[in-house]
């Protein structure tokens, strides 16, 4: 076991005993990445800060339940996502899209993709409506199936699929715009 992992394990153990110093260190270790996750699920900084706050309080109050099976980062991340979903459900932002369209896309220049920064991608996601954003994040980033997303958000599989499609179209358009702004030749073909 590497020193880093050992350090992390001892930090977790100390946090389980409620040591304030260890809690701060653990927070510092994960705060950057987790804030990124929170931003992904929120429309702005304020919302992301709220999710982050709820998430870390939950991490520290439930840390006794972490039994060192699997990645701790994964565990923390899921708690963050969970908090974001709770917030989403609490706000009851249910936007339904009735038409299910089967979009097919093609990008002409693959290299162009690499030139979009993470920050820009994040901004694009943040501008999506809450439900599109949540469905896209859960499907594309977290890897859940439509069945699972439907259960989590209490929507039908069809709605989840259509939300994802719409989210993809919107993101695609925005990516295209970004390239246009940079005077890049990006060709989009929609069947």
């Amino acid at each position, binding site marked *: 076991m590497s020193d880093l992992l050992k350090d992390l394990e001892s930090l977790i153990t100390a946090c389980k005993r*409620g040591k*304030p110093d260890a*809690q*701060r260190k653990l927070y510092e270790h994960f*705060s*950057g*990445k987790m*804030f*990124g996750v929170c*931003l*992904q699920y929120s429309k702005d*900084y304020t919302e*992301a*800060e709220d999710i*982050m*706050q*709820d998430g*870390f*309080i939950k991490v*520290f109050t*439930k840390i006794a*339940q*972490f*039994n060192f*099976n*699997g990645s701790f980062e*994964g*565990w923390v991340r*899921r708690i963050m996502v*969970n*908090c974001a979903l*709770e*917030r989403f459900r609490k706000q009851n932002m249910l936007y339904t899209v009735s038409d299910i369209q089967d*979009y*097919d*896309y*093609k*990008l002409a220049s*693959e290299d162009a*993709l690499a030139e*979009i*920064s*993470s*920050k820009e*991608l*994040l901004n694009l*996601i943040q501008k999506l409506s809450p439900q599109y954003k949540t469905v*896209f994040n859960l*499907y*594309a*980033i977290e890897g*859940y199936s439509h069945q*699972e997303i439907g*259960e*989590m958000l209490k929507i039908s599989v069809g709605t989840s699929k259509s939300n994802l*499609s719409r989210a*993809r179209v919107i993101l*695609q358009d925005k*990516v295209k715009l970004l390239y246009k702004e940079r005077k890049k030749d990006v060709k*989009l073909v929609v069947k």
Partner: protein
Amino acid sequence: MTLPSEIDKLFKEGLSDYSQRPPGFVWDNIEQALNKQRFKKQRNVMYALAASLALLLSFGAGYLFTNSETDTTYVAQVTELDNLNKNLLADKSSVTAEEVKQKEAVKNIEIPVAIQNQINENVTLNQIQALDKKETKIEKAVKTEAKKVQAEGILLPPIFADQGNFENANNSSFTDVQVAEERESLELIERQKMDLAMALMKRDLVYEYREVPMYPLSEGTDSKVKDYSTWSVGMSASPLVSYREVNNIQTESLASADITSNYENKYQNEKPLVSYSAGIDVNYNVSKRFKIQSGVYYSEIGQISENVDVNKSRSYINDGDSYYTVNTSMGNVNIKGTQNQIVDQINTVDRPVVNGGIEVPGNYGFEKSAAETADLQTSFVQSFEYYEIPIILNYRLIDKKLGVNMSGGLSANFLSGNNAYVEGDGARYNLDAQSENLNSVGYNGIVGLAFDYPIFSKLYFNFQPLFKYSINSISEENKVHPYSFGIYTGLRYNF
């Protein structure tokens, strides 16, 4: 290349290592919330300690007050008696006429009612009844024989003997022969002698009681009376109805639950739980009126959340430590497994089953088709097992054959079990579940009544209805105070 997967890939890879430092106040807020939780924990312990202290002090003060009243009257009487006895000793030569006078004075000293009661307690019931019946005769006998008895020196020995003056008293100016002759002349019948013996016994008890504190008075040592205290042990059991008082629910605990029982309607779907409690107790009689009761009791308390919807949904935490949460007023219940584990298992077999493979009756509502398409509606029972160590003070209100006592005290409760199960059709199906953030130690205030009735000479039947209210909150997060009511019934043996 198909764009959907490209778009997904673009975002997944582009954001996978994305990191951004959050503003500093986020940690400040988290720290504040964590400190608040710590403070609440400490404060609850302090409250419980303060309440325990206050209760013990008030009982203690009540006890001292009651006793000091008796003592004052009693000490005054004893001092008077002591002085008279000393006078008698000093003035042995003029014993004949004066002694009779002084001893008459001793006889006329009125014994306080409280002391009389205490004396009566030490005489068995039958003896008291017998004495009551013979009271008139005894009075006569005492009157006619008083002089002789006093002359014999029987009245004085307890005091004189210990002071080494008993022989001196016997060597006074009137001799044994004279007394014996006088006695014979009265020709007492046997029965009168028996009555007199009873009277003497009664009187000796008074003396026995008096002489104990008399020495401390002259020697300046502890004046506490200890002779009549007794021990007893017993066992009792009771059905226990328990519920809770909701003072405040933290919204954060509510938000962190996957399933909310019914917060909007103030948890109106929650019902009291009927369980049981049993234990052994040890009693110590401090005085005639006060008895300290302690022991160890096992108690199960909890509540039922009826018609809780379990949505068929996958847990967001899917690895080995996955769980889902049901929110109730007593906090969140973490159920290990995925949220629809109950439902999933129903899908795999013909007959519905719940978590753990236990069969559920078909009419319980866990229909296969229903489970696949709709929510499950079920009753969750939260069960909390405690070992309670009480200290209860019993004050005897009515001191008859059927004794009635007022009970009040405290108990320290140690959490030994924290479970949840699904209930239906009178059967229970255990879940691998726990209510989270419970305090491991709790404190109850206890009030009630205690009745006792003798079955045999030393065996008593006990009947003790008790109401217990938790001084501190059951949960670290919410202000929820459980309470319970039970009628403890059992037997007690007095040593």
